[in-house]
């Protein structure tokens, strides 16, 4: 009989450590049963000949195979050097204490395993168990970094460190969305999500291994040209000009987006992806702020119009560069506070983690747009006709905003006022499930990674969405409200992958679009379901 995969197996060479068959995945309900019989498309051999694929037949990183045994050894030494730095306060000023506590105190009670959607949806594959990844790192740490570790490890669980183990561990750190549902469930506060993050950090900062979508085309492009989308200031202004014209048709009045206004109350920074992929979101913010008489501005300085900070997911150095840039732009513009648009990871990056970085006059006040919007909606300054949102609505809770920051109520107070057919998902709030696109996954689509995401990491969210609408007829259009660009990207891909627009009439969008759609003096609906307007003018 085959015994269960153990952490030590990570260093035993084989073609793959784990594999998902179609029948392993948690079954989807009607009318999606046809997907239950189809497997994740395999990697194309001619495209992966020179890269590491020995984890699970999926690739996030495309790590080149070392050319020689000497190169392998050099990579192992590099890994150990990086590992050492993770445990030094000079080199890990951000997360050393929670990392140490998580290394020392796991009781292996497995409460986290039941909390993890990737583990559950994959059919409980050992490699995705939250403590599997953590235990690999823990054993390497104990054996190679602790005095006497090589002898003690024979008792506490041995593991051999070789290139195979390292390459697999790197990939494995990108099979967790860092949603930290496991950490919230742990009775003693061990954070296996943080451990995945620290592994990513070691690989990026010490070995130059990171997904190209979030490093080369992400952080680096953000710092170089001003946005991870590649959009330079004139492109941002051109897009916004077009959005203003579109909003004029919706509102019937002239909508103005103020740029670079010194001393404004609010500097609103969007995820720049919104301007290209979800322009109504950017427009709806402008409509609400203008109608409520808010003193606000956007910044046209490079990086000042893109609030993303992908470094949060994998690299403290990139994280710090972007966070300081955001704070510095704000300081020079002399605004009272930053308001972060509907972008989940930017919330955590700029408000929570940057708190350890921004001191003195860089420590400008930072606020979630959900809070700003709740103040506006509840102030009575806007007049609503909630009957305009006469369609079923459910709410997705972005992990970084809700579980990590505890912002639970503002978005619900807004929905109570404007969405009469709102219903919660089960579970929701701080117990929500990740969209499956967290920590950069929504941007990553090389090889068959998007298929893995749609089939495995986003699967729980898809089932939750379907369950929230299970009593609604298939032909009724349904709105998934997801106030986060990354989550929207993942949900859009889910809807496309499972043909859920055709089969269940699922649509998605942000929170501000729902607010504007219910404003009584709008001339036209901002929300459309395909060709169909959400209300008749």
């Amino acid at each position, binding site marked *: 009989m085959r015994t269960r995969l153990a952490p030590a197996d990570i260093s035993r060479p084989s073609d793959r450590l784990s594999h998902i068959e179609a029948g392993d995945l948690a079954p989807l309900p009607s009318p999606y049963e046809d997907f239950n019989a189809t497997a994740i498309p395999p990697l194309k051999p001619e495209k992966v000949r020179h890269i590491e694929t020995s984890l699970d037949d999926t690739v996030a990183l495309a790590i080149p195979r070392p050319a020689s045994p000497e190169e392998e050894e050099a990579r192992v030494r590099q890994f150990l050097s990086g590992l050492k730095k993770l445990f030094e306060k000079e080199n890990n000023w951000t997360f050393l204490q929670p990392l140490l506590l998580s290394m020392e105190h796991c009781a292996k009670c497995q409460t986290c395993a039941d909390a993890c959607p990737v583990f559950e949806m994959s059919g409980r594959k050992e490699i995705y168990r939250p403590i599997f990844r953590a235990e690999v790192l823990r054993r390497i740490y104990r054996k190679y970094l602790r005095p006497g570790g090589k002898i003690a490890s024979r008792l506490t669980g041995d593991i051999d460190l070789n290139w195979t183990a390292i390459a697999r561990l790197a990939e494995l750190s990108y099979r967790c969305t860092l949603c930290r549902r496991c950490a919230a469930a742990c009775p003693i506060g061990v954070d296996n999500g943080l451990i995945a993050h620290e592994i990513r950090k070691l690989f990026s900062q010490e070995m130059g291994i990171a997904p190209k*979508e979030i490093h080369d085309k*992400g952080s680096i492009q953000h710092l170089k040209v001003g946005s991870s*989308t590649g959009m330079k200031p004139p*492109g941002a202004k051109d897009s916004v000009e*077009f959005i203003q014209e579109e909003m004029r048709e919706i509102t019937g009045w002239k909508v103005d987006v103020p740029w670079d206004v010194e001393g404004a109350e609010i500097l609103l920074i969007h995820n720049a992806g919104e301007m*290209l*992929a979800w322009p109504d979101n950017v427009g709806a913010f402008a409509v609400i702020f203008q109608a409520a008489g808010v003193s606000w501005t956007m910044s046209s300085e490079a990086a000042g119009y893109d609030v993303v900070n992908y470094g949060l997911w994998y690299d403290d150095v990139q994280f710090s560069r972007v966070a300081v840039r955001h704070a510095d732009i704000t300081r020079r513009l002399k605004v009272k506070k930053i308001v972060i648009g509907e972008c989940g990871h930017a919330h955590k990056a700029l408000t929570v983690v940057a708190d350890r970085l921004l001191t003195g006059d860089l420590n400008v006040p930072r606020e979630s747009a959900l809070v700003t919007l709740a103040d506006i909606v509840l102030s009575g300054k806007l007049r609503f006709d909630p009957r305009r949102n006469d369609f079923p609505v459910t709410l997705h809770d972005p992990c970084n905003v809700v579980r990590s920051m505890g912002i639970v109520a503002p978005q619900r107070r807004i929905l109570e006022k404007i969405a009469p057919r709102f219903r919660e998902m089960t579970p929701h709030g701080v117990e929500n499930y990740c969209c499956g696109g967290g920590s950069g996954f929504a941007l990553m689509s090389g090889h068959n990674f998007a298929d893995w995401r749609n089939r495995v990491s986003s699967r729980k969210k898809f089932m939750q969405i379907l369950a929230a609408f299970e009593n609604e007829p298939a032909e009724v259009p349904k709105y998934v409200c997801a106030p986060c660009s*990354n989550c929207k990207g993942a949900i859009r891909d889910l809807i496309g992958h499972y043909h859920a627009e055709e089969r269940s009439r699922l649509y998605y969008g942000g929170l501000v679009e729902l607010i504007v759609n219910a404003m009584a003096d709008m001339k036209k609906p901002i929300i459309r379901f395909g060709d169909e307007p959400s209300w008749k003018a």
Partner: protein
Amino acid sequence: MPTIELAGKSYEVDEDGFLQELDKWNEEFAEAYAHADGIEGPLTEEHWKVINYLRSYYQEFGIAPMVRKVVRETGLDLKRIYELFPSGPGNGACKLAGLAKPTGCV
């Protein structure tokens, strides 16, 4: 880096087939790629309207324009654009126009 052979020439592309060396683009590239992408016959005036707009916007701003802007500027509705480019405005039209693959949260 993968390459693609079109009309007797070799081009470097990324794994999704987006051209890597943007200055290597030429009209034969678009014609030959259209054929490989399942578009029948030579490219029509409407195809060129979309491709030329995408290229001129990209040259000015360094990014692809938002889809709605393509609709407004070319006067072709989204349905028509999908008929012209069955792989869609991003994976179809942008690829033929030799633009880089979109990046960031889009």
